């Protein structure tokens, strides 16, 4: 650095002090940072919200037993939301069954992350068609009739249940999105195929 350059720099600094520029650089700098921070925080908050909080009527149950047994099990929900179950899981690879399933096998599928869609045996054929179309498009789901259901359609995952009246209810899609292999799954990574194939 030559002497003249340093002198010029000193002069500039003096000028900046005496001329009292409005500090636009600083104002823009901090405004932009502030805005960006606000957007980032909002975005992070919105994207971290679990999807399940938006499902009205969702029933949750925690602390369910998970032992294996070949004997019949008395469940306290209908359809059961979890509990002890048969060593064989019911195949739940986008499967539509036309007969009721054994609870003890179906509960094992829930443990593997499946959503079990049950319906009244007399559900209207158009409703059945809409439901089975959904099931066939989504792995880790299965569907079966269930006698004496207290709602036309019931969706069940491990520890989560939702009763709906109509196959076009938008909560069905949200339930699938939230709970197919969802965070409630006790045994993530376990298969849905290769299980019990018949009702």
């Amino acid at each position, binding site marked *: 650095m030559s002497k003249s350059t340093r002198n*010029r720099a000193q002069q500039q600094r003096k000028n900046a002090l005496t001329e009292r520029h409005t500090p636009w650089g600083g104002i823009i700098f901090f405004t932009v940072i502030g805005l960006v921070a606000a957007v980032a925080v909002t975005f992070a908050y919105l994207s971290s919200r679990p999807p399940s909080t938006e499902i009205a009527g969702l029933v949750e149950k925690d602390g369910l037993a998970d032992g294996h047994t070949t004997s019949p099990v008395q469940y306290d929900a209908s359809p059961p939301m979890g509990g002890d179950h048969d060593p064989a899981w019911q195949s739940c690879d986008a499967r539509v069954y036309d007969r009721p399933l054994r609870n003890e096998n179906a509960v094992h599928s829930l443990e593997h992350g499946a959503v079990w869609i049950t319906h009244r045996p007399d559900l209207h054929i158009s409703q059945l068609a809409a439901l089975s179309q959904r099931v066939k*498009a989504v792995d880790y789901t299965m569907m079966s009739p269930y006698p004496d259901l207290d709602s036309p359609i019931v969706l069940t995952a491990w520890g989560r249940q939702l009763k709906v009246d109509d196959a076009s209810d938008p909560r069905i899609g949200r339930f699938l999105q939230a709970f*197919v292999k969802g965070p409630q799954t006790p045994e993530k990574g376990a298969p849905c195929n290769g299980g019990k194939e018949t009702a």
Partner: protein
Amino acid sequence: MTGAAGTAPRGRRIAAVLAALAVAAAALLVLRPGGGVSGDSAEAGFARDMSTHHAQAVKMAFLVRDRSDDERVRTLTYDMIATQSAQIGMMTAWLDAWNVPHTDPRGPMRWMNGHGHGDASGTKAMPGMATPEQLRELEKADGRAAEIVFLRLMLTHHKAGVEMARAAQTRAEDEHVLRLARAMVRGQQAEIDLMQQMLTERTSPA
């Protein structure tokens, strides 16, 4: 050194540069919070669909393993079962880490087919998947017949799998996804060559 631009206050220029850097850094943060991936991304679609695809391969490998004594078939299928199950685990862990759904209720393959609007128009089959009838055919066969059914089905399955992995390589950006997709293309292509050879041995007249 300062030249003609020396008339502009240096502080303002530095502030402008810093602001530009801050905007760039923040843009990165907003677009990928915590290095994350969105539920509609090619990364997530690939992880979901390839898990389903792999799961069926594992099942078919088990089926033929229960029906064949051939050492080469048993070694090949042991490799497939172990490798593809481990890869399902990797993809499952990614979806958890990205905090995105493990399923798309609108149906599979949207990440590859360019997101058709409206709803899923039913059940778009995933390429290369064996139908329930084909699986039953494999279940009923035994020994050499089962090996032939298996090799045919798995060749179709693997070829489609390689295509899906290639599509992921062109659509995804996540480094882990790209690495696994690359490994799948390599590994499955090698198995395709081997299976083609094994099938020829079993079907061409001696």
